[in-house]
Structure formats: C-alpha cells, structure tokens
C-alpha cells in the first residue's frame, strides 16, 4: 500500500490534503462551532436555528473550506521559508506534501488533547494556549528529523535547522497574536 502511494504522487498529495482537512476539523471543532454560533447570533443566519445537525454541518463545511485553504497556504509558506534560507536543492512538492502530512499529525494530536477541554473550563484556558504549542513542538521536531535525514547532509544541516527554528518561532508568535 505504502509502496503504491510512493509511486503515485498525485494520489498521495490528494490524500495528504484530505488528511490535513480532516485533522483541521477534528482539531478546531470547538472554535468552528463557536464561529458558526456567532454568525448565527450576529448575522441572523436562521438556517441553523435550533438544529444540532445544521450546526454540525455548517461547522464541518466551514472547517473544510478553511482547512483546504490552509493546506495550500502551508505549501506556499514552506516555499517562502526555503527561498528565504536559499535552500533550493530539495524537491519542493514532495517537501510540501510531507509538511502537510506532519501538520495533519500535529492537528490530530492537538485535537486529541483538546478533548479534555470538553470536560472542564480549566483546560480550556490552559489547553487553548498549551495544547497547540505542545503539538507544534513535538511534530515540528519529528518533521525536522525526518526531512533532515531525507534531504540534508552535515554541511547543509545547520542552515536548515536555523531556518526551521526561525519558522517555528514565527509560527508560535503568530499563533499567540492571532
């Protein structure tokens, strides 16, 4: 199965986007429902009135669109970071797909951790801040190790590591600001 996927880039890429979108919805369902609820309250969207099913469908739909956009942005963000670091000797499409897959893993991990939020407001305060941070750190390290093994040697690794750390710090700070 894995071998077949490795021989079919287009299918793998599509599956990685799908995994990303599903993981994003799983990770962000609380926020998505909140956003839909706010839209309902503020804009008078009456189609979701009193219907749990409509709320869930609207949330999944919104999450799907946002996830799709983010999955594309992830690829371009990686390209910008690599260009910024003058790293040109790696297969960009493959690298972007790997990044998307690892992001999907991170979102899934974050989603699992966020389930705790459902039970207590305590972790909604701490979890909202720390769960994404922990997930990003863990998955970021794993992604770095994997790509370092795949594409870089001892001469190019310091530059790549520096790029990864800067990208990670920017991502964390942006996450807090946003």
């Amino acid at each position, binding site marked *: 199965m894995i071998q077949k996927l490795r021989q079919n*880039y287009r299918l793998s890429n599509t599956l990685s986007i799908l995994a990303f979108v599903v993981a994003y919805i799983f990770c962000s369902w609380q926020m998505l429902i909140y956003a839909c*609820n706010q839209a309902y309250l503020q804009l008078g969207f009456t189609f979701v009135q009193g219907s749990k099913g409509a*709320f869930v469908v609207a949330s999944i739909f919104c999450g799907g669109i946002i996830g799709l956009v983010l999955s594309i942005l992830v690829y371009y963000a990686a390209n910008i970071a690599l260009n910024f670091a003058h790293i040109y000797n790696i297969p960009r499409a493959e690298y972007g797909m790997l990044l998307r897959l690892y992001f999907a893993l991170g979102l899934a991990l974050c989603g699992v951790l966020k389930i705790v939020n*459902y039970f207590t*407001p*305590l972790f909604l*305060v701490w979890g909202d801040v720390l769960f994404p941070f922990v997930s990003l750190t863990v998955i970021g390290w794993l992604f770095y190790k994997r790509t370092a093994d795949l594409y870089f040697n001892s001469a190019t690794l310091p530059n790549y590591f520096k790029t990864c750390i800067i990208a990670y710090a920017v991502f964390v700070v942006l996450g807090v600001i946003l």
Partner: protein
Amino acid sequence: MKKFLTVLALITVLAVSLATAKVSFAESSAPVEALDFLQQFIDSRSNGGESAFLTDKFNQIENLEVSTVQLQDYDGVAPHNILGKKASYVKTNSQVIIGAHYDTVLNSQGANDNASGITALYLIMQQLQNVDLPFNVVYVAFCCEEDGMLGSQHFVNSFDDYKTFGSIDDTIVMFNLDSIANGDNLYVGCESVSTPLADFVVNSSDGAMTEKPHAIGTNYGEGLLGYSDITTNADYVCFRSVGIPTVNIFSGNFDVVTWSYYERKDGNSTMNTTADTLANLQRDGEYLNKINAVANTVVATLTNDEFLPMANCARSNLVNLKLWYNPLYPLIVMALALIVIVILAIRYHKRLQKDSLLNPAEAKQTDTFFGAPSATDIFSFGNDSTSSSDNADDIFSYKD
C-alpha cells in the same frame, strides 16, 4: 357539637385550600401590568420615542433620582443612557447596578430583545421603590447594545460622569436582563465555574431559573486579562471586564453536544431579526411569566438579608483572578518554554556547525518518497555511477 364540627370542617377546608393554593413564583405578580408596559414601550419605539417614554416611566417611580447621560454623536444621532438612582437608608458607597438595553436591531420591534428586559427592569423598580436596602441601587437603561455595547462601554469608561453612589470598586454586583422572554429556559450566568452568587440567585428564583452550564461555550478570558462570553455577549461583559461581579439573566438553550446556544427548540428564534415582534413573542404563553419571574428573582435576591455579605465576597470568586482560569499564566509558561527551546536550539545549532566543520560534506544517497534523482544519477556518466559519493572527477571528467 354540630357547630364545632362545622367550624372544624371549615377550618380544615380553609387550611387545605391555603396549602394547595401555593401560587407559583412566576405567577405571583400581575402579568397584565407587564403586558401593558411591554405594549406601550414597543409602541413608543415606532416613533422613536422610547427613551422619552422610559425617562417618563423612571420619573414615575418613587424615591428615584433620574438622569440621562449622552454618549458622543454616533451616526448623526446622540444616544443616551437613562439612569435611576435609589439611595440606601444607610450611608454607604456600595451599590448594585441593574441594567437592560432599550435599543434593538433595525426594523425590529425588539419585543424579546430587549423590551422584555426593560419591562422586567421597570417591574423591579416598582417593587423596590419603597423597600429600604442596605446598599444603593442604580437602574440603567443602556442604549446602543446592538451596535457593539456602546452604551454599557461608555458607562464603564466614563464611570465618574454618571455620578453614581460610588466607584467601580464600590459596585458589588451588576445584574443584566437581556432577551428574557422568548427562549425556552431562563438562565443565570455568572462565571465559568459555579459560584456562590449564581447559586444564590438560582435559589432565589424558586425554580424558575437554572445556572448556565459553565463548561459549555461560556465565558472565558480573551486577551491577557480581558473577559468575554462566547455565547451570550451582552452589556454585562463591559462591567465584568473591569472586575465587577455580574449576573446575566437571559433565556434560551445550551446544547452540551454542539457547545452552542440557541433560543428555541421549535425553531421560532427571533433574536436580532425583524421577526422579534410582540405577536411572535405571544405565541409562547409563558413569556409574561418569564418576565415576572426575572423581576421577582432579582427582587428576592436583593431583599434577602444574606445577599450583601455574600455579594461582598463575589469579587474573590471572579475566575480571572485565579491561577487556573487566567489566560495570562499559560502564556507566561509558553513564553518560558519557548525561551528554553530557543536556548537548546542555539546549542544544538552550534553542535551541528561543529560537526559540519569536522566532517567533510558528503552528498547523500537520498531516500525520497518519489525517487527524485540524486546528484550521483545526474552528474555521473561513468561506470561507477552507483558510487555513493560525487567528486569533481565524477562530475566534470568524461570517460569512455
């Protein structure tokens, strides 16, 4: 003996009648009066005279000092908050604020949102007008709630301009009455955890209200020390943001499955729509009982002897003062963790640099997913193209 038995029977019947005639809390006051006020207030809206109507009604209440404070011009009009100040029988700066907004969205009667809250406010003023309380009471009809809580924001930001009995610190509790008639259930929302204040109000409601499920899409900190409410953003948020304990009374449903708030299960939700009319509100036969229940609950809460000592402790139960509920603390933890990670990363980077200097750089036999050609495959034309390393000879020398 016959007479005695007759009298005994009469007494028994009377006693049984009294015992069984326990009128429910919601029905104990006169709903007709609430309906009259509600109807008149909605009518006054049709010609833009709601603030004049309210000022007039406030002036009819005994022992109340009425004033208005104008906000700055907004969209060419000059909206204002209407205040009624009722002094305590003791000399004190402590005050309770009871508020409801009197504006509504464009082209809407706003029967539920928030003529119902204003009606309850008026009923409370009526019931308390001749009651001596050990604290001052400030009644406020806020303007511009639908425009982003501008009225309540102005009240909090320009607290001194309103010349109330005390400062923000002297305000022990703020009650907010918003959209209390059309939702299925009446809720009391205080903090994101159960608090003595919420319990107190719920107990005073005689079963008419329940506490908002505090783990469900509810009020948590936003920003560093701020405060917000996810599902029922209303005027009280401005007061809560400056550290005043609040009691938000509203109607609707909380869904524990979808973490959502909605007004009615039957789909007849009207909030912030043109369908928020008195006719639609009257489809729910309980709407007047809900308004009366809210008014009676607030009155019962304030007239309870235990209210003042309990309310004086309410500030200590604000969740953002607690370690576990203040979002500032996890941010500090995250910032510290980030600093540690950066320090470790710098050390690791130095080690990588050292390794790269000590070890000659070697082109790797890459193990890419999709078999991207390696440098060896591209640049080596000789028989030794399977060699794992490239050198200048491999690349630039042509071999036969």
